[in-house]
């Protein structure tokens, strides 16, 4: 059971996310029928999975919502802002309830209760009914649907009609008539229609009395005796009528099902037997034809079941378009995926040793096999890796909601645009990016954007715009957050920084440097603290988090025009394509994606340069001589080669040359951690094992450059 609940939690939280984004979209497009249908379907699925996990309290709650959206589908004008707010609130509650499935916490019980009241009010308004009646009908209707959701596949034998009206006192001795109806579905396909016309209003409702009766149509390999057996323990007070209506399995005939669904009128009278029998006769003939044409295949029946439920619950019978989509995806646990990645990386390593063996043996046959293996393992790696990536879209959707709520809170009007949602990132990266991005957005909303009045004064559209976009840039993914707010007031910042002792009165800083000050710990310009942001622990933490992901954050702001914050994070992969080079006999891997070109330069030229810059392809390129940069303390250097290789790399928009002794070739490196003992060597992002078993070190080029710059500064 707990496993089932876990599955439920996973599926449900995804479904909630989806519904949230749909509803947010709906808020802007109140007339979009397609969206309403999708929301409805989402709720319907949610109800189904919660029912399956046996979470009746949740199922019941969602049912109310679903019903409302069912009405909205019939009449779009029912869709109000109020309803959208309510839906979002409900989704929030459901998210909380996912952690409290049985609804045991007091606050959750209260919350749910008050929300249910609200929903019922809305529903009553839409249905034009008394809320109490709505509430009443609802629970019953909901029970009915639960039963109907589990009909059994049958052979086509006979069809019976059963009218069952249990005695009023039936529940006192603990028996539950619902279980009986349920039991019936064990022996044949059943369609049950509850009749609750006798049920009183809620204020005079007596929980101990059973006032509901059922009309049940059952078909399958059954007999009257068998049905009677089911009801054997029911008191004599109960009314039970069993009549055979057909010698065929009418319930397997979808037309018949559709026809009898007219009886699905909750307040209606019991089915009159004559009516049902005449219907049965009508379809008896048709059934004959059908059975001739199609041998009753189980799949056929399954289809019918599917259609049936749609007929009943979606009167518009919009075919579920999403279905094929969800069918083509598979839920896999991350452990399995990690295992797969582990094996893939071992295959890549093994392939590398195969290649080196093939190189030494020099047999054409072996070469061929090795080459094929190389191609295959590369493809395998690509496929496996792409599986660990998730589009950034999901996260963007979450922000949409946050922006909406926060802007309301702040009394600002914002248009939030997200672009490049299809950009894919490693899942762990996305998780770690969420908080920093959230904070940046909050800052933009709170400090960046002006109030509508201020905006009008500044000759800007009343509604502010925040644009969040993601795109690939070489080996990086860039995420840009742009707002058209007031921008950063450099004077204010300078003042503040001096006041806080971050800079001194006489320090001269460029505009960019001043803007960067907002990333200094303990800096906050908002004169008054607000709930949303401005606690002064913001941007420095953001910067720290981003650099933990080996990313870079930069800011560009124009007074009165807006602010753009750009985050660049590397696609940290467990396998990277790199260039294998040697420096003083040690193998290093330079990530291929940032490499621009390789040049051969005489070593003498290195000695004749100033400021470590030389000219390549007509451009001045600063360089880092890895030989001296990595020289060990004891200084035992091998003599330099006559020609050194310069690998130019794009690091932070600049071209920088890395001087190495020799270039071995392209290499797929499986990143392995260097471990705790080397945690201070952060310019090495990991190690990789070469085909011959030697360990190569994978360079973090940005960190290497950073360290080299620091060292040069210290020397000067």
């Amino acid at each position, binding site marked *: 059971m707990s496993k089932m609940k876990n599955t439920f939690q996973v599926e449900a939280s995804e479904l909630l996310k989806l519904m949230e984004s749909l509803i947010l979209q709906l808020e802007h497009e109140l007339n979009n029928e397609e969206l309403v249908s999708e929301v409805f379907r989402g709720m319907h699925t949610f109800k189904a999975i919660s029912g399956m996990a046996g979470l009746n309290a949740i199922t019941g709650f969602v049912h109310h919502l679903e019903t409302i959206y069912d009405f909205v589908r019939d009449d779009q004008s029912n869709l109000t802002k109020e309803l959208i707010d309510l839906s979002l609130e409900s989704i929030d509650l459901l998210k909380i309830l996912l952690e409290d499935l049985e609804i045991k916490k007091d606050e959750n019980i209260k919350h749910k209760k008050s929300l249910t009241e609200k929903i019922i009010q809305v529903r009553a308004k839409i249905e034009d009914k008394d809320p109490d009646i709505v509430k009443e009908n609802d629970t019953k209707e909901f029970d009915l649907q639960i039963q109907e959701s589990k009909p059994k596949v049958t052979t086509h034998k006979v069809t019976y009609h059963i009218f069952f009206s249990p005695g009023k006192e039936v529940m006192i001795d603990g028996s539950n008539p619902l279980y009986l109806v349920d039991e019936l579905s064990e022996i044949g396909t059943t369609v049950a229609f509850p009749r609750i016309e006798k049920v009183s209003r809620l204020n005079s409702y007596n929980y101990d009395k059973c006032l509901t009766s059922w009309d049940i149509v059952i078909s399958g390999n059954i007999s009257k005796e068998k049905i009677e057996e089911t009801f054997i323990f029911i008191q004599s007070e109960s009314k039970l009528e069993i009549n055979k209506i057909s010698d065929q399995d009418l319930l397997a005939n979808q037309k018949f099902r559709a026809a009898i669904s007219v009886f699905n009128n909750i307040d209606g009278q019991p089915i009159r037997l004559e009516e049902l029998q005449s219907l049965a006769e009508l379809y008896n003939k048709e059934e004959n034809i059908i059975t001739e044409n199609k041998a009753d295949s189980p799949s056929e029946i399954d289809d019918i079941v599917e259609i049936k439920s749609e007929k009943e619950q979606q009167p518009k019978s919009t075919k579920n378009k999403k279905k094929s989509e969800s069918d083509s995806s598979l839920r896999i646990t991350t452990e399995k995926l990690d295992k797969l990645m582990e094996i893939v990386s071992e295959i890549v390593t093994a392939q590398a040793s195969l290649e080196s063996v093939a190189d030494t043996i020099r047999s054409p046959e072996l070469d061929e096999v090795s080459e094929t293996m190389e191609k295959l393992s590369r493809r395998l790696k690509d496929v496996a890796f792409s599986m660990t990536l998730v589009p950034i879209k999901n996260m963007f959707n979450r922000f949409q909601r946050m922006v909406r709520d926060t802007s309301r809170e702040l009394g600002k009007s914002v248009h939030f645009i997200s672009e490049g949602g299809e950009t894919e990132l490693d899942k762990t990266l996305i998780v770690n990016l969420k908080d920093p991005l959230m904070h940046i957005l909050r800052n933009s909303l709170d400090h960046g954007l002006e109030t509508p009045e201020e905006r009008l004064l500044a000759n800007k559209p009343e509604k502010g715009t925040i644009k969040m976009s993601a795109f690939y840039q070489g080996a990086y993914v860039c995420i840009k957050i742009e707002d058209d707010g007031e921008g950063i007031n450099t004077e204010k910042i300078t003042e503040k920084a001096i006041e806080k002792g971050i800079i001194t009165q006489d320090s001269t800083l460029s505009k960019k440097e001043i803007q960067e000050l907002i990333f200094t710990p303990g800096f906050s310009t908002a004169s008054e603290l607000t709930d949303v942001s401005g606690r002064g622990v913001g941007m420095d933490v953001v910067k720290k988090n981003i650099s933990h992901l080996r990313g870079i954050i930069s800011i560009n702001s124009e007074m009165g025009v807006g602010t753009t914050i750009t985050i660049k994070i590397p696609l940290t992969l467990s396998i990277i394509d790199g260039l294998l080079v040697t420096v003083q006999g040690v193998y290093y891997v330079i990530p291929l994606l940032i490499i621009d070109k390789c040049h051969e330069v005489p070593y003498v030229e290195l000695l004749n340069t100033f400021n470590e810059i030389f000219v390549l392809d007509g451009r001045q390129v600063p360089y880092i001589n890895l030989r001296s940069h990595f020289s060990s303390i*004891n200084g035992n250097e091998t003599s330099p080669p006559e020609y050194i290789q310069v690998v130019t790399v794009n690091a932070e928009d600049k071209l920088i040359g890395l001087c190495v002794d020799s270039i071995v070739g392209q290499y797929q490196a499986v990143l392995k951690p260097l471990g*705790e003992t080397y945690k201070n*060597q952060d310019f090495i992002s990991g190690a990789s094992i070469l085909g011959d078993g030697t360990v190569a070190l994978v360079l973090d080029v940005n960190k290497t450059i950073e360290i080299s710059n620091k060292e040069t500064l210290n020397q000067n």
Partner: protein
Amino acid sequence: METVKIKEPEIEKVSSYLSFYLGDEQFAILVSKVIEIMEVPRITKVPKTSDYMVGVINLRGSVLPIVDINLKFGLKPKERTPETCIIVMKININEEVVSVGILADAVDEVLNISENQISEPPSMGGGFNKEFLTGMAKVEERFLMLLDIDGIMNKNETELLKNVGSITEKKQDEDTNTN
């Protein structure tokens, strides 16, 4: 025989130790800490690390850091001989168990040492820092130094660098790098 019988009820703790040589000195560590003993493969030196951090090796697909305790103790590193080997052991660094290999000039034997054979480490002698020892064991007529390997690896970097700095001047000509 009689004395043994009398001693038994005292529940004397006897542990197995692996003895090995660093230079001419004999050391021992608890066998329970040792994972395996292996030949010295090609070692990749990680740049910008202290000298005693000899580098990393490939241990069946994972990366294993190698430490030269000779250098750590400020002794002269020995020439690698066929006898030289790596003792792979579990150590605790910042409450995490990690595998580390230490270079040993020769591995001797596994022997049982009872608690009463172990005495406090001497406060002087041998140029060894006494904080890296858990004690001295007298086995037959020899003295074994019991290494506190966890303690060695947990000394903070500045302290280590101090040590290393003073040694390096003496050992500039020595090749600690296998390459």
